[in-house]
C-alpha cells in the first residue's frame, strides 16, 4: 500500500469521476478537492523521501528520487492552485457563454487526466512509459486547448497536435535506439528500459548509438520544451486555450519535457564521455533565449507575450543544464521551480485582467490598479519577478547562471545579455501601461481568486531570499544526481 | 607672523584702498591726454566718491535685501583680494588663507553677487548686463586660473607669495611660457576691468555696455562702493600682473629696508602700467559683444598653450 498509489490514483480517479459529473456546478469544487488530495499525497511522499531516501515501487517500475519528487510536489501544488484559480475564472467564462456544460465536463476531466499523465511521467522509472506519458499529456492538452471550439483554438490545437506528435515520434525513435544500445549491454531481459539499470551501466553504452539517440530525443522532447526552432506550436497553444490551461502548460508541461531530456542527458554524458550533449543543449538554449526575446518584443497579445517569455526561460534552463556542473544544475533546478510558480501566477493575473478588459490585446488593457489594485500589483510584481528583478527567485538563478557562464563560456554571455535586456525592455514596456495610468476596464461579477497569485509570489520571494534547507537539500542532491560535468 | 608682517599687511591694505582710485584717475588722465581732451584731474575719482557718499540713496521699491548688501560684499571681496596679492612685500600673514585658486574664487564670488544684484530689480538693462558679465566671466576665470597655473607650475606652488618670492629672488631666467601667459593675462584683465575693447567704462550705450548696465540702478553710497570696488579690482589686477611678470622690487620677509624701497618701485610700475593701458585703450576699438567670447577664448587658449610649453620644456 504505497503513497504513490494515491499520488497517481487521485488524479486518475478524478479524471474518471469528472468525466461523469464534470458538467455539474459543484464540479469545480470536486476538481479542487482531487487536486488537493493529490497535493497532500505528494507532500507525504516527499516526507518519505526526505526521511528514508529514494525508493522503488512495484517491481522498480516506479522510482522516486529527490529529483523527481520535488517536481512531483511542485506539479501537484501548481495543479492545485490553478484549480482554485479556475473556479471563478471558468465561472465567468461560462457566463460569457464561451463554455457550455459538456465542455466543462471535458475540461474538468481532462484537467485531472493531464495532471495524472504528468505525475506518471515524473514518477515512472521506465523510459518507455515516460514516452507514453508524454504522448498522453499531449493528447489531453490538445483537448484542453481546443475546448473553446473557436476556429483559432482549433487551429492552435491542430498545430500543437501535429508538431508535438511528430516531435514525440522522434523521441520514440531515440528511445528505441537507447533500448538497442542497452540491449547489447544487458542482454534481452526486459528490464533494459529502466532508468536505474541504465544509469548503472551508462559507461558501457555504445557512444555512437547514444549520441544519435540523444539527437532524436532532444529534437523530440525539445519540441515539447519549446526550444527554438521547434517552438512554433507553443505561443498559439498557450494563447488560444483557457488561461488555467496556459498556466499549467507554461508552468508544468514544459518541466516534464525538460525532466525527460535531463534523464537522457545523464545517460548520454555517461556513454559518450564528451560534452556533446551539453553543447547541443547550450546551443539550443542560447538560440531560444535570443530568438524568443526578439519575438517577445513584437507581441500584442498578452498571453502570446508571456508564452514567448516561457520559451525564453526554458532556453535559459536548457543552457544552464547544458553547462552542467553543480552550480549550473542547481541554478537550472531553482529556475524551473521559480519559473513555474511565477509564470503561472502571472497567467492567473493576466486571466483576470483579460476578463475585465474582454480582450487579450495589451493596448486595450489599461490602468489595472485603478479597477483592481491587487490584480494590478500582482501583475506588476509578477512581471518584475519574471524579468529577473530581485529579491525574487528568478533573479537568484539568473545570477548563478550568468556569473557561471561569464567564466566558463564567455562567448555565450553577449547573447544572454542581449536576450535578457530585450526581454526586460519589451515586457515592462507592455506591462507598465497595462498596470498604471487611466483605466478602460470594468469590474466583474465574481471576485477574482488572488490567493494563488500571492502565494506563488511569496514562494518566489522566499526562494530568492532564503531557500529552506530541506528544499536546498533536494536541489543539491538532484544537481549531484545529474552528475557534475567536467 | 612677525610684527613686520602684520605691519606690511596693513600697509598693503591701506595702500590698495588709497591708491586704487588714484590709479583709475591716472589711467583716465592719460587717456584724455592721448585723445587730446582736457583731463578732469587725477583726483577726480576721490571727488566723485565723496559726492556719492553724501547723496541720499535711491532704491527701487521692490529691491530685495540682497540688492542692498551686494555692494558691501563686493567691496570687501575686492579688499580681501588686494590684501592677499603681494604688492609691497611677500610677507603677508593673510596670504596663506587664500592662494591663487582662492583669489580667482574671490573674484568669481564678487562677480556672481554683482550680477545677482543687477538681476534683482528686474529691469531689462540689469539682466542684460548680468548675462554679459557672466559671459565674460566664464571664459575669463579659467583663463586667469591658467595664467596663475603657468606661474605656479614654474614655481611649484599655488600660494601667491611663494610664487612671487621664487620669481623675484630666484636667479633670473627667461620662461617662454610666461610670455604667452602675460599676453593672456593682459587680455583677461582688459575684459575683467570693463576696458576697451571689451567694454567701455564711460558710455551708457546699451549695445555695448556691460559693467555700467549692471550698476545702472545703484546710486549714492552703494554706487560709490561699487565704483570703488571696481577701481580696487583694477588695482588688484595690475598688482597681480606686476607681481607675476615684473616681480622685482617686491620686498622679502623681514627686511624693512626693502619694504621702504618697494613703495616707489611699485608706484613707478603702476604709473607705467596705467599709461600703457591708456595707450592700448586709445589705440584699439570697441568690439561687438559677440566677438568677446572669441577674444577671451584666445586668451584662454594662450594660457593653456603656456602650460603645455611648461610641460614640454620640463619646467618646475
Amino acid at each position, binding site marked *: 500500500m504505497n503513497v504513490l498509489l494515491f499520488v497517481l490514483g487521485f488524479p486518475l480517479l478524478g479524471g474518471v469521476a469528472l468525466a461523469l459529473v464534470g458538467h455539474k456546478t459543484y464540479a469545480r469544487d470536486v476538481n479542487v478537492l482531487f487536486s488537493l488530495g493529490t497535493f497532500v499525497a505528494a507532500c507525504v511522499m516527499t516526507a518519505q523521501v526526505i526521511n528514508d531516501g529514494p525508493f522503488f515501487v512495484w517491481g522498480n517500475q516506479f522510482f522516486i528520487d529527490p529529483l523527481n519528487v520535488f517536481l512531483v510536489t511542485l506539479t501537484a501544488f501548481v495543479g492545485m492552485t490553478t484549480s482554485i484559480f479556475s473556479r471563478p475564472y471558468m465561472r465567468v467564462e461560462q457566463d460569457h457563454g464561451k463554455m457550455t456544460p459538456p465542455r466543462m465536463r471535458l475540461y474538468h476531466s481532462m484537467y485531472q487526466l493531464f495532471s495524472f499523465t504528468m505525475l506518471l511521467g515524473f514518477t515512472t522509472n521506465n523510459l518507455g512509459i515516460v514516452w507514453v506519458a508524454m504522448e498522453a499529456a499531449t493528447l489531453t492538452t490538445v483537448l484542453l486547448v481546443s475546448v473553446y471550439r473557436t476556429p483559432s483554438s482549433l487551429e492552435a490545437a491542430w498545430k500543437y497536435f501535429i508538431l508535438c506528435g511528430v516531435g514525440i515520434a522522434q523521441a520514440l525513435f531515440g528511445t528505441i535506439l537507447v533500448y538497442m544500445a542497452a540491449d547489447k549491454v544487458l542482454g534481452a531481459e526486459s528490464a533494459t528500459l529502466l532508468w536505474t539499470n541504465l544509469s548503472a551501466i551508462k559507461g558501457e553504452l555504445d557512444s555512437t548509438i547514444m549520441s544519435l539517440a540523444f*539527437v*532524436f530525443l532532444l*529534437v523530440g522532447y525539445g519540441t515539447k520544451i519549446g526550444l527554438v526552432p521547434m517552438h512554433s506550436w507553443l505561443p498559439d497553444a498557450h494563447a488560444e486555450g483557457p488561461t488555467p490551461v496556459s498556466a499549467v502548460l507554461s508552468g508544468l508541461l514544459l518541466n516534464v519535457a525538460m525532466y525527460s531530456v535531463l534523464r537522457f542527458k545523464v545517460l548520454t554524458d555517461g556513454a559518450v564521455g564528451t560534452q556533446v550533449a551539453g553543447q547541443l543543449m547550450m546551443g539550443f538554449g542560447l538560440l531560444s533565449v535570443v530568438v524568443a526575446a526578439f519575438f517577445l518584443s513584437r507581441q500584442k497579445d498578452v498571453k502570446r507575450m508571456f508564452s514567448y517569455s516561457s520559451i525564453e526561460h526554458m532556453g535559459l534552463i536548457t543552457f544552464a543544464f547544458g553547462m552542467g556542473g553543480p552550480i549550473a544544475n542547481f541554478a537550472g533546478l531553482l529556475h524551473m521551480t521559480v519559473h513555474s510558480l511565477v509564470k503561472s501566477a502571472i497567467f492567473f493575473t493576466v486571466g483576470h485582467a483579460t476578463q475585465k478588459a474582454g480582450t487579450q490585446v495589451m493596448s486595450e488593457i489599461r490602468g489595472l490598479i485603478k479597477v483592481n489594485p491587487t490584480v494590478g500589483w500582482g501583475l506588476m510584481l509578477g512581471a518584475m519577478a519574471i524579468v529577473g528583478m530581485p529579491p525574487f527567485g528568478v533573479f537568484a538563478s539568473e545570477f548563478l547562471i550568468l556569473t557561471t557562464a561569464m567564466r566558463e563560456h564567455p562567448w555565450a554571455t553577449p547573447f544572454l545579455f542581449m536576450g535578457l535586456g530585450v526581454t526586460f525592455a519589451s515586457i515592462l514596456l507592455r506591462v507598465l501601461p497595462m498596470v498604471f495610468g487611466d483605466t478602460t476596464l470594468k469590474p466583474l461579477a465574481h471576485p477574482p481568486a488572488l490567493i494563488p497569485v500571492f502565494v506563488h509570489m511569496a514562494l518566489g520571494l522566499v526562494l530568492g*531570499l532564503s531557500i529552506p534547507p530541506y528544499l536546498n537539500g533536494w536541489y543539491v542532491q538532484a544537481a549531484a544526481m545529474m552528475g557534475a560535468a567536467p | 607672523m612677525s610684527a613686520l608682517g602684520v605691519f606690511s599687511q596693513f600697509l598693503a591694505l591701506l595702500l590698495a584702498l588709497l591708491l586704487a582710485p588714484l590709479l583709475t584717475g591716472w589711467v583716465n588722465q592719460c587717456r584724455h591726454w592721448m585723445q587730446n581732451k582736457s583731463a578732469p584731474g587725477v583726483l577726480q575719482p576721490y571727488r566723485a566718491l565723496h559726492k556719492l557718499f553724501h547723496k541720499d*540713496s535711491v532704491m*527701487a521699491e*521692490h529691491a530685495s535685501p540682497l540688492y542692498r548688501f551686494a555692494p558691501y560684499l563686493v567691496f570687501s571681496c575686492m579688499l580681501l583680494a588686494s590684501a592677499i596679492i603681494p604688492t609691497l612685500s611677500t610677507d603677508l600673514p593673510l596670504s596663506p588663507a587664500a592662494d591663487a585658486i582662492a583669489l580667482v574664487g574671490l573674484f568669481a564670488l564678487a562677480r*556672481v553677487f554683482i550680477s545677482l544684484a543687477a538681476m534683482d530689480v528686474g529691469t531689462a538693462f540689469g539682466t542684460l548686463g548680468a*548675462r554679459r558679465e557672466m559671459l565674460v566671466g566664464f571664459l575669463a576665470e579659467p583663463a586667469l586660473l591658467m595664467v596663475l597655473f603657468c606661474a605656479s607650475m614654474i614655481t611649484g606652488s599655488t600660494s601667491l607669495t611663494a610664487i612671487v618670492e621664487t620669481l623675484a629672488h630666484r636667479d633670473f631666467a627667461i620662461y617662454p611660457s610666461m610670455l604667452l601667459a602675460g599676453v593672456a593675462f593682459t587680455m583677461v584683465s582688459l575684459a575683467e576691468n570693463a576696458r576697451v575693447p571689451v567694454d567701455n567704462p564711460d558710455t551708457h550705450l546699451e549695445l555695448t555696455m556691460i559693467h555700467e548696465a549692471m550698476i545702472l540702478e545703484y546710486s549714492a553710497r552703494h554706487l560709490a562702493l561699487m565704483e570703488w570696488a571696481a577701481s580696487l579690482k583694477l588695482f588688484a589686477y595690475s598688482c597681480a600682473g606686476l607681481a607675476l611678470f615684473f616681480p622685482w622690487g617686491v620686498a622679502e620677509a623681514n627686511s624693512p629696508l626693502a619694504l621702504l624701497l618697494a613703495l616707489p618701485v611699485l608706484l613707478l610700475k603702476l604709473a607705467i602700467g596705467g599709461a600703457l593701458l591708456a595707450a592700448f585703450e586709445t589705440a584699439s576699438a570697441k568690439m561687438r559683444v559677440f566677438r568677446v567670447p572669441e577674444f577671451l577664448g584666445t586668451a584662454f587658449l594662450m594660457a593653456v598653450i603656456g*602650460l603645455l610649453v611648461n610641460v614640454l620644456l620640463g619646467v618646475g
Partner: protein
Amino acid sequence: MNSMTVPGAWIHVDWVLLVVVAWLVIGMLGIVALRRFRFVATVLFPVGAVFSIVLMAVALSAAFSSPELAVLPLGLPQLPFHLRLDSLSAFFLLLIGGVSAGVSAFAAGYFRQGEGTPPGLMCLEYHVFLASLALVVMADDAYVFMVAWETMAMSSFFLVISNHRKPEIRSAGYLYLLVAHVGALAILLCFGVLQANTGDYTFANMRAQHLSPFWASIAFVLGVFGFGAKAGVLPLHAWLPEAHPAAPSPVSALMSGVMLKIALYGILRVSFDLLQTHIWWWGVLLMALGLATALFGVVFSTVQTEMKRLLAYSSIENIGLMCAGFGLALLFLSYGMKTYAALALTAACYHMLSHAFFKGLLFCSTGAVMHATSERNLGKLGGLIRYMPWVAWSTLVGALACAGLPPFGGFVAEWLLLQSFLFTTGLPSSFLDMLVPVTAALIALIAALSGYTMVKYFGVIFLGQPREEKLSHAHDAGLWERLGMVWLVLGCVMLGLFPNQVIAVIDPLTQRLVHGGMAHTVAESSWLLVPVSIERASYAPFIFLLGVLASFGLVFVLVRKLYHGRLRRVPPWDCGYPFQNARMQDTAEGFGQPIRQIFELFFRMTRELPQASDASPRYAVKVEDPLWYWLYLPVARAVEWISALVGLLQQGRIAIYLLYSFVTLIVMLLVVKQ
C-alpha cells in the same frame, strides 16, 4: 544579527542594521496606515529622519574603527548575506544618513494628498529605498549587493512614477529602469569575472583572486559600464534628465544627492578594492569619460528652461568631475604615487559629500517652489525672494556651493581637485604629462560654467519681478520643509568651513583604498587646509570668511558713521520708456542664449524664427540631446528591425513549422555524424 568580531557585543554593524530594520518597519507602518495622510506625514517621515541621524552618528564612529563583519541567515544556501562595515562603507553611510535626514524632514512637509500613489505606499517605497541604499554599501558578497542594488532601482522606479497618470512620467520611469537594469546585468557579469570561477561570491574571495590583466580589464570595463549607467556617465546619461523631473522633489533629491553617489561607490569598490591590479589606461579612460560627461552636463544645464532638468544636468556635470577625480587617483595609483592618489581621491570624495548636500538642498527648494507656484518652467517664475525668503536664502547657499564659490563646500572640492591635477606633472609618461594642463583647463572651464548656470537658476527664479500674476501670492515653505532645508544648508556651510575635520573623516577611506592619506598633513595645520606642504598651497576658508565678514561689517559701520544711512524707495528707472512690464526681463532662454551660440555643436537645435510678415511673430528654439538620436534611437530601431525579421519565422503554415523541425533534425544528425 550575529557578528563575527565580538560575539554578543553590540557593534556598529548591528546599529546600522537596526536603522535599516527600523526603516523597513516604518515603511510597513506606512502600508498599514495606507491613507491616513497626517499620520504618515507628521509621524513616520520625521521618525525616519531621526533614524537617519542615528545612522550618521554610527557611521562617524565606524569610520575610525576597524572593519566589522556580519552574516545574516538569508540569501542563497551556500551564500548567506555577508555584510561588512569598513571605512569606505562608513563614509557612504555618513553621506546617506546626513542627506536623508534633511530630505526626510523636508518630505514630511512635502507630500500632499492627491493623485497617484497613496501616501502610505509612498512611505513604504521611500523607506525601502533608504534601506536598500544602506544595504548596498554594507554588502560584502555579490548576491546581497545585487539584491540591494536592484531593490534600490525598483523602489526608486516606483517612487519616480508615483504620479503615474502622466504618460511622460511613466516613460521616464521606464527609461530609467531599463538603463538601470542593463547596467545591473553588466555589473553581474563583472562579478562573474571577479569570482574567477571559484563559485565563491564573497568580496573577500574576490580580493584574494589575482586576475590576468586581460580579465581584470574586462571586469573594470564592465563595472564602469554598469555603475556608470546608474551614475549617469556619458553616454548612458539619458535617463537622468528625464527621471529627476518626473520624480517628486524629495525623491529627486535622494536620487541625485545619494543614489548617484552609491553608483560611484560601486566604481570605487570594484576598481580600487576588489581589483588588485591597476592599469594606467583605466585611469585615463575614467578621466576622459568623466570630463566629457562634466562638460556635456554643464553645457546642457546652462540652456535648460525647466528647473529640475537644469539641476539634473548639473548633477551629470558633478558626477563627471568626481569620475575625473577617480580616474586621476587610479592613474597615480597605477604608478604607485600613493600620496597624490590619496589627494585626488580625497578631492573626489569631498566633492561627493558636498554635492550630496547642496544638490539635495536645491532639489528640495525646487519642490518648495513648485508647491508654492505649481510652476516648474523658469520662464514663468521670478521675484520669489520677496514672497518666500526662507526658500530663497537657503537656495542661495546651495547655488553658491554648486557654483563652486568660496567659502562653501563645492569650492573646497574643486580646490583640492585642481591641486591634485597640478601635481600630475612628474608622471613617468610624457604623454600623460601633456594631458594635465588640458584637463585642468577643462575643469576650470566647467567650474566657471556651473557658476553661470547657478546665477541663471537663482536669478531667474528668485530675483527680478514676478513674470506671472499668480506668483504674487506664493507662500513660503512650511515648518518641516524649512527644517529639512536648514539642515542641508548647515551641511553645506560646515563642509565649506571645516575642511580639515571632514578630510579627517575621509582619510581612513583613502588609507584603505590607496594606502595613503592627508590626515597627517592636515592635522598639524589646524586652521589651514594644507594638502602637501604650506609652501605648495594652502587655503583657510574660516579666515577667508572672517576676512570678508570683517571688512563687510567695518565698511558698513564706517559708511554709516562717516556719512549716513538715508534711503528713499522709488519705482525703478524706466529708461524713459513707461510701458515696461515684467515680461520684458531676460527670459531663461535669453540668459542661456550666448552659451547656446558658443557651444552650438553640442546641441541638436530646431529653431522657429519669426518672419517680417508674421501677424503675431514668435520665436522658439528647441534644444535636444544629440546622443539620443545617435545612440538610443538607433539601438531601438535595430531591435525593432531584428524582431521584424524574426517575426517572419512565425508565419502560420504548419508545413513550414514541420520543415523547421525536419531541417533541425537533419542538421543535428549531420553534426553528430562528424
